């Protein structure tokens, strides 16, 4: 049973990691201007854009989950 719990946790961790990779990809495209990448760390537009991109993505997930529960309740 402990093993099962362990495997489930690992499975969840793997899914979170996969989400982070996919979200990095999505948000990089939205926030880092296309074409040549500017040298240096994330600048004052890129950094908040990346953070907001994560937050709005998860906001969107919540909207979807709420709608799904409404549908279930019908």
């Amino acid at each position, binding site marked *: 049973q402990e093993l099962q719990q362990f495997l489930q946790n690992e499975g969840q961790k793997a899914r979170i990691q996969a989400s982070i990779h996919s979200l990095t990809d*999505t*948000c990089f495209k*939205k926030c880092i201007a296309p074409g040549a990448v500017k040298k240096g760390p994330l600048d004052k537009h890129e950094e908040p854009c990346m953070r907001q991109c994560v*937050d*709005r*993505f998860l*906001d969107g*997930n919540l*909207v*979807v989950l709420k709608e799904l529960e409404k549908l279930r309740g019908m």
Partner: protein
Amino acid sequence: QIQQQGAMQNARMLVEKLNQHCFERCVPKPGTSLSSGEETCFTTCMEKYMQAWNTVSKQYVARIQKEQQGGGLL
């Protein structure tokens, strides 16, 4: 139990694709919060996407069954 896992993975995949897709469409530039326009877009997009998935599933399965029968008869 494997069947249950299959069904759960299927549902999880649908929600994942849907989130990904509707985020791309509804939030071109992530801001400091989800605007009400973006939120409406999410629910509309979600409904459309689920219907689209339903239509594809039905059509796909029907076609495969037709082909297998055809193959069996020829």
